[in-house]
Every structure is written in C-alpha cells, then in structure tokens.
C-alpha cells in the first residue's frame, strides 16, 4: 500500500489558472495598478499556467481574490489558526525593482483590496536575501508583523486577497512577476506504507504537473521541508509503516525584511516531524539500517535551521505496539522539543544528536552507541528519567549545557558512556538539599559535574576499574612478591603499590576511572636471598575498562645474590 499524503489544513486555495480555484465562488485573479496581468503558459510551475504580470517602470498589485464568502481566519481560534500560506512566486527582474526602502516586492495580504492590507517585503533591487528571482515558495505566517505598518485595518481573521505588490523603476520587457499555486496548511500528513517514505513524500509534493506543495521540495538530492510532517494519524484506519534511509532532510527557511533584518516569515515553531498512531492501528517509523545488535548505519540526516525551533516527536502514544527505530540517523540543529517516545521497544542505535535541544527519551527507548554533541540546550544534551535505557554512547563537546542531566537525586549507574570535551559531564538539577547524586560509572568516564542548587547537594562519581599487573619471568612463570608501582604519567601520582600474588603474580588495585589515563609501571624484585631480577618498567593507559598488563622480569645474573 502506497502512502496517502495530504496537506494538513485548508489546502490549495489557488491554482493560478483561469478557472475558479478550488470551487471558491467569486474567486478570481486580478491586478490593480499600472501593470498588465494575464495567465501565461510560457512560465509556470504547477500545471501549465501561471498568473503573470508585466511591470515596466511601473507598480501594481497582482493578487488572488478568494471571494468575500471564503475569507480565511488565521486569528486565534480561527479556522486557519496556525496555518501558513504557501505561495510560489517568480520574479525574473529582481534588478529592476525598487529598493527595499522603496518597497520593491512585497507579499500583500488584504482583508480589503486597497484599504486594509499587510505587506511582507521579500526583495528589493538592492537586496533580495540571496533570492535570484526563480520560483520560490514563500511560507507566510499572516499573523506576523508586516514589514511596514499595516495599511488601514488589516484583519488577520478575514483575509481575502493574496498577492504580490511589485514596483519597478526601470524598463522591463514582458511579464516579470508570476504566481503559481497557493496553499494554506500546517504541513502534510502521511499514512499508508512505504519503505522509501521520505522519497515518496517529496516525489509527491513536487509532482508539479499535478501539484506544487511547497511543504516538501528537492534540490540536488536534498529534501527541504517547510512545516510539519505528520506521520500517521490518531484517526488512521490502518497500520502505518514509514521507512527510509540515507535521506538528507533540511528544514527550510522563508524570510522577509522586517525593516531592520531578514527574519522568518513563518512561525518559529511550525517545523517538525510528529508521529501519531491510533489505539487500534500502529505507526511504525524506521530510519537507517541496523548494524549488529546495537548499532546503526545509513540513517537519514535531519537538519534544522537557525530560524525555527524544529521539533521532533517520535512517539504516537496511542498504541504500545507502535515502533520507532532510528539506526545511524543524524539529528542536527533541532532546537525544538525532542520527544523520543515512552516505549521500551523504540530503538535508537548509532544515532547522532548534534547541536540539538535537550533529548528527552521520556520513557525507555533503547539508546545504544549514540552520540550527543554540542547541545544548544542550556541544561544538558540528554535528560535522565527513571526508565532511561542508555549504554555505550558518547557525549562530546557539550559546552553550552552539560552532557547528561539528572533532575532527581539518587544512585544511578552508567554503562559505557564516555565523555570528552564537555564543560560538565553531569548536571545535577534537583532541588536544594536533595543530597548526594551518586553515579556508578561502569566503563564510563564522567568526571565533571555541575549542581544547579548547590546547597545540600553534591555529586559523587564512582568509576571503579581494576588495574591489573601480572609479573612473570622469562619462562612465563608467575613471580610472587614482586613490588609493583603504578603511577600517572602526567603528574607521577601513585595509583598502586602492591606486591604480586603468590600463585598468579598478579598485583591489582581498584581505580576510580574518570578519563583515559596514561600510566607508567615499575616492577622490582631484587631482594637478597631470593631470585633477583632487573627492574621492569613499562607504560600503558587506563581505559574505561581499566588496565591489564604483564611485565616480564629478566633475571639479574650480575647482582650479588
């Protein structure tokens, strides 16, 4: 079963052709001003026409009138609240526009054609924000403040006119402003089944002869997402299975000039991915390829942007059998809320969470061989919870926030968690006077900690590993009674001072591991009255698993016995 893909919201409101769009009575394309308008089949994106205008040293407003009976309400509690306007615009004469200051090209939304409207400046001859004038889908949150003071009394709850104001100050030849399909939505919703889910979605959205949904676009193999992708539905009537691997999904930006800077034209929270399921029907989301039993590869790369707090909610929550698996997936720059699902079946293997908001595993997804790096969260890259299930993962270069936050006092174990380059490995954020947070680090190396409420709180990191030194002779026989000293290379701190055991030749000592530690080892046995050996010396490194090595002593045939 293929995927079923729908716009989430109002949907298409104008197709930019001569026929009334989307059965909205009274709707029509038109122009007020000094230009000339027409439907052209020379330049188009969706279908085979676009609405064109010719402005040679002229200005005017090229618009779509949705009709007085069909006005859209984006206001709070309005029908279209939270939805955005996706408008494809093409202007091949950017250089002929008036400057930004003189309002070269704006998106004008009006509740009245001439007296009440809001404008969002998107280009001037002096600055087009990197846009070369080609087809571009501007994603507009009409509730945002316009570039200039609204004209008249613009009513965001009753928008009727959707179009472009253009003002050129030079001779232009032919049509020089085009508008293609206009949609109003929050994003898309996907149901059905696919093993190439992202690709299918994109291919569908960019099927320009049939649709020009700007929610997903593609350039040079990179998928650009504008808005939210809802996978599954609380109302789905069948299981949903969405799988893919190796895609690059970049959350796109759409900006306008607010008078002082280029800022997002969309709401900062409108981007994200959300899984949904139904109590009777599961949603399975899978990315990448599992490697072995607890690692992954070929995952997709999902990249946020600086304008939006891209969120990720990979937990439907209605069906315990729903499953999210990410193998080798890379989440980068996702600054919105990250919810990975309160489900112990969910798997995150070999996943990288880089420059993201705090990762909240909520319940007990299995996290293995993951990397949490460069968090942009001021608390920590990962939030502990009682059911957390994480092992063999790395926390690297988390300098804004800590690596791992423990909000509740207690004694916890870490297994296979390695830390490097973090300002703090542990953040202890419980209330004051909660007591000691004890971390029993097993094959882990947390060493630094930050305490939010220092009064009455402390952190104790216990990372006990063994330093084992076996002492043997040239014939591989254990040498008992040899004196073994182990010292840090960095500062000569003594870590062990033991005699080797009788039967094994083993000298052993526990060591509280915090970081890989270079050591040097001295072994001596040259006491009068027994076999005497040359001093032995070697070096090594205490890793998260401790140190084990053998020193072979050579019999001293010179020394006086």
């Amino acid at each position: 079963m293929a995927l079923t893909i729908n716009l989430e919201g109002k949907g298409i409101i104008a197709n930019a052709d001569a026929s009334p769009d989307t059965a909205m009575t009274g709707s029509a394309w038109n122009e007020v001003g000094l230009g000339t308008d027409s439907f052209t089949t020379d330049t188009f994106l969706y279908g085979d026409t676009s609405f064109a205008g010719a402005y040679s040293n002229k200005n005017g407003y090229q618009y779509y009138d949705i009709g007085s009976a069909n006005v859209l309400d984006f206001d709070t509690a309005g029908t279209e609240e939270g939805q955005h306007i996706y408008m494809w615009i093409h202007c091949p004469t950017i250089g002929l526009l008036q400057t930004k200051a003189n309002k070269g090209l704006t998106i004008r939304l009006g509740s009245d054609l001439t007296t009440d409207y809001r404008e969002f400046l998107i280009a001037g001859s002096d600055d087009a924000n990197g846009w070369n004038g080609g087809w571009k889908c501007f994603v507009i949150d009409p509730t945002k403040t316009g570039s200039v003071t609204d004209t008249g009394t613009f009513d965001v709850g009753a928008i009727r006119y959707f179009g472009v104001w253009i003002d050129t100050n030079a001779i232009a030849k032919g049509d020089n402003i085009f508008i293609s399909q206009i949609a109003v939505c929050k994003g898309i919703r996907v149901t059905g089944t696919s093993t190439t889910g992202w690709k299918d979605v994109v291919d569908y959205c960019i099927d320009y002869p049939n649709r020009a949904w700007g929610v997903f676009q593609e350039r040079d193999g990179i998928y650009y997402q504008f808005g939210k992708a809802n996978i599954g539905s609380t109302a789905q009537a069948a299981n949903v299975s969405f799988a893919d691997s190796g895609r690059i999904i970049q959350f796109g930006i759409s900006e306008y000039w607010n008078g002082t800077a280029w800022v997002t034209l969309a709401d900062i929270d409108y981007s994200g991915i959300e899984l949904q399921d139904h109590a009777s029907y599961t949603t399975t989301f899978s990315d990448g390829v599992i490697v072995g039993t607890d690692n992954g590869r070929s995952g997709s790369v999902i990249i946020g942007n600086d304008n939006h707090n891209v969120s990720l909610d990979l937990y439907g929550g209605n069906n315990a059998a729903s499953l999210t698996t990410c193998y080798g997936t890379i989440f980068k720059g996702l600054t919105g809320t990250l919810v990975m699902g309160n489900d112990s079946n969910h798997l995150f293997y070999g996943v990288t969470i880089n420059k993201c908001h705090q990762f909240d595993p909520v319940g007990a997804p299995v996290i293995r061989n993951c990397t949490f790096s460069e968090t942009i969260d001021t608390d920590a890259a990962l939030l502990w919870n009682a059911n957390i299930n994480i092992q063999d993962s790395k926390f690297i270069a988390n300098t804004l926030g800590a690596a791992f936050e423990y909000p509740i006092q207690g004694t916890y174990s870490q297994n296979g968690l390695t830390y490097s380059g973090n300002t703090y490995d542990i953040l202890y954020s419980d209330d004051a006077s909660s007591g000691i947070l004890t971390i029993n680090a097993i094959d882990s190396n947390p060493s630094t900690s930050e305490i939010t409420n220092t009064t009455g709180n402390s952190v104790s990191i216990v990372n006990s590993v063994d330093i084992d030194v076996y002492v043997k002779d040239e014939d591989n026989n254990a040498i008992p009674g040899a004196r073994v000293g182990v010292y840090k290379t960095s500062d000569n701190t003594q870590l062990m001072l033991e005699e080797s055991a009788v039967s094994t030749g083993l000298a052993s000592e526990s060591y509280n591991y915090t970081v890989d530690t270079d050591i040097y080892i001295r072994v001596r046995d040259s006491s009068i009255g027994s076999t005497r050996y040359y001093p032995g010396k070697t070096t090594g490194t205490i890793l998260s698993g401790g140190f084990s090595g053998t020193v072979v002593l050579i019999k001293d045939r010179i020394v006086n016995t």
Partner: protein
Amino acid sequence: MAIADDVSIDYINKIIGRDASPSTTVYTVNALYSYLMDTFDELTQLDDEVPMSAQTPTSYTMTNGWYIRENLTQFLETGAIQTSGYLDDVHTLVLDGTYAGPDEANIGTQVTDDAADIGALLDYDNTAQKWFIRVGSSTVIADNSVMSINGDAGVTGDASGDSTTGETIFANPYSLGSINGSPSLYIYQNGSVITSWWSAGHFDILIKVKDSGTDIDSKVITVFAREFAELYSHFEITLTTAGQNAVPLGTSLDLNNETAVATVEDWQDGTTYSIAVAYNFAAPYQYDIGDGNGNQSYDCQIDANGQTLDKVYEVCKYWTRRTSTKQLEYNTDSNFINGEAYISADDTYSPVVVAPFGTFAGGKFFGAQGIYFTNLHGDDAQNFQLIDNGGTTRNPPNYQAFTVGGLASGDRVGVYEETTQGSGLVDKTQYSLSGANALNTITVSTAIPVDTPATGSIIVVDDDGSEVAYAYSAWSGSDFTVTISAAVYSGSETAYVPYLYEESSGSNVSETTTIYVSDRYVVTKVRKAGILPFVTSGVYSSTGYSGTAIRTTDSQYT
C-alpha cells in the same frame, strides 16, 4: 658495618654518596649495585627511579639522573661506572678568584650564580676548586660568574671559564703481577700524581677518566711501583670505559741498590759526591765511545764525578724513586717532570722499566737510550754500555789498564814490551822509523797499534845506540806528535813506546787509555836510588796488566 651503613642515598637530590660516618671498607661496585637494587625494590622506593644498571659484572651505569659522589667511588673496586644522564643536567665548574670552598653541609643546597639559584650542589673538589652542580639544562654557567651557596655567603669563588656538562666515566684499573712486598703504587694522570686513597700493595680502584664529557688525557694513566732498593716497574694504560683494566707490574729487590737512601742522597747533593745529570735536547751531547764510529748524540749526560758506576746507578735509582721530586727533563729542554714519573729521555725511546736511566748488572751499567757518562772512574773504563739517541747500542773499546802498585812516591816506573816472554829485556826495536822525521812528527814504518797509550813517550834509539825520549801528545796512523825539529833522524833508527813511563806520586800508577787487542808480554822496571832495581815480566791480557813492585832497600846505597 654493612654497606647500608657506609652508603648514603639522597632521594631528593638523587645523590649516591658516602655516609657521614663510614667505615673504611672498600666494596665492590657489584656490592653497591646489589645493595641499591635491594633497596629500590622496596615498595616505598618504587616511586624513585633506580639509580644504577648493570651491563656486565664489572660494568655499571648510573642512570635516571642519579649522581655518584667521588667520596664513594674511592671506596669501590672491581667494576667500572659510567653515567647516563649527566649531559645537560650535571655541570662541572672550575672556580678561581677568592675561593672559599663548600663543605658537606652545602651538598644539596642551591648554588647561586650572580645571586640567582641555578641548581643544587652535588659534589665538590676543593683541591681542584671544582663544583658539580645539577643545573638541569644545557645552559652553561658563564665565565666569571660570581658563585656562592644560597644561605652560605661564606662560600665564594668565580667561574673560571664556562661550566661544562657531559657524562663521566670511572674506569677500573687493578694491578697484578709479582711485586716485592707491598709497594705504594702511585698513579700519574695528565702529568700529575693522583693523591692516593688506596692501600699499599696491589690495588683495585676506580679512576675518573672522563669528566663532564671530556676524556682526561685520552683516558691514559701510568701506574708506578718504584720503591727504592727494588727494581722498579710502571705501566701506562689507556683505560677502557667498561669492565676492568689489568695493570701488570713486577718488582723485586735490587741487589745493586742496597745502600741506604740517605747515603745515596749524599752522593748526588755534594755532601759526599756530586754525581749529576744534565740534558741537552737542542744540541745533544757528542760523545765518542771509542768504538771507531766517532761521535754520537746523547740527550742526557750523567757526570759520574769520578765515582764508580755502581754508585752512579744507585743515584739514578734515587732520582727516580717514589716520592722523588728531582726535576728531570724529557723530550725537550726544560720540559721537567718529577723523577718519580720519569720514564725516559724521550717518549719515543724504549723505556727501561726497572731503572729509567739504565740497569746495572755484573758490575756493568747498561745505560738507557740517550744517556752517556762522563768523568768515569778509572776502573769503569769498560763497565758500561750505551745506547745513543739513534738507538744504536754502543760498547766502549776494551780499555785495559796498566797498573803498577807497591810504589812509593818518586819511584820511576816503566812498563815496556818485552823482547820475548820472560826475557826481562825491553824490545827496543818495536818500531823502525820511516824516513827522516818531519817537524814535530816521528813517523814509524808500521801502523801504531791501538793498545798504544793515547799520550805518552816514544823513545828513539839512534844508530849509535843512544836514546832520546820524546813525549807525544797524540798519535795517529803511523805518526806520533812530538816536539822535534825536522830531519833529526834519517829513518834508519828504531824506537819503542813504553806503556807506563812516569814517576810515581803515590802507591801506584796506571794507564787507562790503552785498548786491549791481544796479549802483550811486558817487562816492568821500577827504580829509585835507595832500593834495588826491580824488574819483572808479565802479560798484558784481556784483563789488563797489574804488577806490584817489590821495593828492596839497597843496603849498599848511601
């Protein structure tokens, strides 16, 4: 005491030294190594690096920056020690100026260079005015730096040259061989005697042969065994870095050197005699030993002062005995050396180990190369053998004396060639003149034999039998040099030359310039009014001729 009581370990300054109150026990280097290994294998010592490693049972190395003091090496034997790690860490500094040396309390204290601390004092040698400092880098202490000890301003000195840094080697020579008794062996290194710390008799010691990276005289030392009254011995050796170095020595009693040293001393200082030695390397002495090869060069002249060579020999031994500071020369003029270290007149000459000036055996002095004698005693005309500067052995001709004893002053003595053995008649036809004589020359018809006295008298027998004696001052070939007018004789005359022809001034007369060639039958006549004429026959043989007059009073003489 155990070695632990004699060895100190300064863990802070990494110094192995000698305990403040040690015994005099000398330990093997192996014992030190073994002790240190035992000490440093204790748990409490594991934080310290081991100070020593062993390469062979007699080769060891100070390691890991540990410094060994020389007050300890002087009590070690049977093993060489080199260092590894002194370079760019330990510096050696020689001081001059107003020097006030450090003491034991200063060991481990910071040395100051122009008032700034530069490192701990590890060791010192106040005799050589030398400090050993752990600078810890290659930065030298500059020449003329004002040095002191932090907290002890009484210690002062100025750097004499930049400090040096490098490794040090203590080599291990040991003597062996048959030596008489327990001679006090002494060592010369780089021209100076090392103040001995070892006992008399054979030694087994550690000698520093490299200091601060520089070999001391190419690691060469010379060990001497020169006790007066013994045959001497010495051995020059280039010590190897590792292991032991055998120094073979052999001494024994010298039966020709039994005179008390004080007596011998008097023989050369003018008290009794003035036997002396002199050198001339720039213009070597020319001496013709009379072997027919003319003059030869000799660097050294020993003036026997008319004394017999046995005395000369003992004086030579005296000059070169242990403790002798007699200033002798070698190689070049005024290149002096203490007699105790004198080996030969020139380094290139083969030394005479047992007696540097030469040996004495069988009453004969066998001179070392480049040495000759002057002012010999008459009895020693034959009692020596020389080696000229060129290395050629030179034997004197067989000077055999004519001696007549039993005389009294005023006795006239003549010793002549006899006509036939036992005839008692003088052979007056010993020579025939050869033609008319020239002015001041009498020429005979045959070559004058070498057993003719160098000076003496020639008696011409005229055709009429009259005789005239002419004193000759020399002879050569067939000519006698005399004082005579030309053509006094026609050449038909005969002549003869007495071996002795003089008036006695004492109890005996002798002639030592004659060289024995073959036996001569001689007749001796002694006459003086008041005694009966004495005549006797004899033979001048390879041992010379010695006759004794019998002076019988002529009772008829009035």
